[in-house]
């Protein structure tokens, strides 16, 4: 570790951080105001309609549940299996998990038509609903992540035994896998959508979560090292990058399996494949495939594993998985079961004016500016949480604390 790096470790947390916190808070408040507009004027102001009844918010929900995986898994796997860790980044990694989970819940809340009736989820729970399973598992996941972070901090001062921490890390790991599976089941258990109804969806959600989660941790730790929040041996970065390469390859492999199984018999499955490869969702499909392949190349070729390229590869993986979420969500609605023309009006479908055929020419759903605004507000809340954590929580590696 160079001397300049040590000096900058001491310096982190000054004016820059405070300005960032103020900006994030302002974005959050603006988002809340736009949410008020959405609730008072109605969801008609979004791009969602009867035939494409979910949109950007649920896409972001899927995406953020995935992003939350990385941190928890990266810090709990080494501990659960008694392996060497990643140089003390586990606390910061778990904190990114907590922030992403809060964001995911936030996106479900802004999607709801009747957020004031949320209490009914606990009063009238239908335990057979995959959505109810998800609410239960995400709550447990969020609480466990916080408990795990707290236990890690206590263990460092010797108040919690290593054994107890290891038990918590095993439970957290199992919950993390469950969270992604259950989120997949919200979609995968619906026989109504050809694209979603596959047993592969749950393992695929786990692999995608590992991809974008690991990528996020890589970006965050390299950035934090750069601004001097922590020091990290390059060997750990290399180890993380290799893991990212492995995850991204598995994720692409699953995609290949799914496309082949859908397309091979022909018929309606082949429609799904052509919608992705050459249809309205092709841009998102190819950005994902090309981005993930490039990411794998950078991660596996030692010469290419330089810091800037690893960050680029990680960002490509995150963008790729986001594109996959868009394909999943919009693609689910892109192929209606009953596509006969009939009465079409403002409530039927996003682009209703050109009739049923016109509405499905391009992507059946596209968000409105209001949706982008509300989504930005929710992200602002996540950024605010992340930055407040960096400022006030003792998340640095224990041997590097300079306060």
């Amino acid at each position: 570790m160079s001397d300049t790096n040590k000096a900058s470790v001491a310096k982190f947390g000054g004016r820059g951080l405070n300005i960032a916190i103020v900006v994030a808070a302002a974005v959050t408040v603006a988002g809340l105001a736009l949410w008020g507009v959405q609730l008072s004027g109605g969801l008609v102001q979004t791009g969602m309609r009867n035939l494409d009844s979910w949109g950007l918010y649920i896409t972001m929900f899927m995406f953020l549940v995935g992003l939350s995986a990385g941190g928890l898994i990266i810090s709990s796997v080494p501990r659960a299996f008694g392996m060497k860790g990643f140089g003390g980044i586990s606390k910061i990694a778990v904190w990114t998990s907590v922030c992403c989970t809060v964001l995911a819940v936030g996106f479900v809340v802004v999607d709801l038509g009747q957020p004031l009736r949320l209490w009914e989820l606990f009063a009238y729970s239908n335990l057979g609903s995959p959505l109810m399973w998800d609410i239960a598992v995400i709550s447990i996941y969020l609480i466990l992540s916080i408990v795990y972070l707290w236990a890690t901090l206590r263990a460092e001062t010797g108040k919690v035994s290593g054994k107890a921490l290891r038990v918590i890390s095993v439970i957290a790991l199992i919950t993390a896998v469950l969270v992604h599976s259950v989120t997949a089941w919200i979609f995968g258990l619906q026989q109504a959508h050809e694209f979603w109804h596959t047993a592969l969806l749950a393992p695929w959600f786990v692999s995608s979560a590992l991809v974008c989660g690991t990528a996020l941790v890589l970006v965050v730790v390299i950035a934090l090292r750069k601004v001097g929040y922590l020091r990290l041996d390059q060997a750990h970065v290399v180890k993380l990058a290799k893991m990212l390469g492995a995850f991204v390859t598995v994720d692409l492999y699953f995609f290949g399996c799914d496309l082949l199984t859908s397309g091979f018999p022909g018929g309606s499955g082949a429609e799904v494949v052509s919608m992705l490869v050459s249809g309205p969702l092709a841009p998102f499909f190819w950005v994902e495939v090309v981005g993930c392949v490039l990411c794998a190349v950078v991660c596996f070729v030692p010469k290419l594993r330089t810091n800037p390229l690893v960050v680029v590869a990680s960002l490509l993986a995150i963008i790729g998985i986001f594109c996959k979420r868009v394909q999943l969500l919009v693609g689910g609605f892109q192929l209606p079961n009953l596509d006969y023309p009939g009465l079409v009006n403002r409530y039927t479908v996003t682009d209703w004016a050109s009739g049923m055929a016109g509405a499905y020419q391009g992507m059946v759903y596209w968000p409105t500016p209001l949706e982008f605004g509300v989504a930005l507000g929710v992200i602002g809340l996540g950024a605010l949480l992340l930055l407040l954590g960096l400022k006030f929580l003792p998340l640095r590696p224990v041997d590097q604390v300079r306060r």
Partner: protein
Amino acid sequence: MAERLGMVIDMKACIACASCAVACKVENNLPDEVWWNRVLTDGGENPDTPAGVYPDLTMSNLVVACQHCENPACVKVCPVGATYKDSETGVVRQDYDKCIGCRMCMSACPYTGVRSFNWEEPRHVVGHALGDADVPAHQKHVVEKCTMCWHRLAKGLQPACVEVCPARVRYFGDLNDPDSEVSQLIRERECKQLLPSEGTNPSVYYLV
């Protein structure tokens, strides 16, 4: 045995006049832009247009509302039980007061477009409510759909679409009663259910 109320619609005799769709809209005081019952065209790209090139043209119609499935996909996924199957009649119902507006049921239902969400405060172009006074008030940001005219069933009446049909193609009754008119029609005539591969077993049958 409990009832399984259902409908048989004779598509060979249907003239696609949309009277059933309009009767449904008026009877249930449906807000602007909301239609629980729709006439679809199986033919060209637009409603009431045929497929093919003259003189080889084909066109048929389909009237679609909630199928009141025996195995409803919507009921399973609702997190709060706002949509549920009535155990006495088999009618799939929706409780507006309970609905949290998550739209999980809309996504799970295989019958594209039979559910409608009130995307804004319900409005009526005539400026006042229409139809039966016993219809529950429509609410903003909840999902709704065909109730099989629940308020009429309570008075021993048939659903409005059945009563109004000028071609008399709609038949209503108990599918669990082998002697009912609907059961006899299903036995004696060639009929189909929509999307049978979805495994939902709709209580609406079409004579073809």
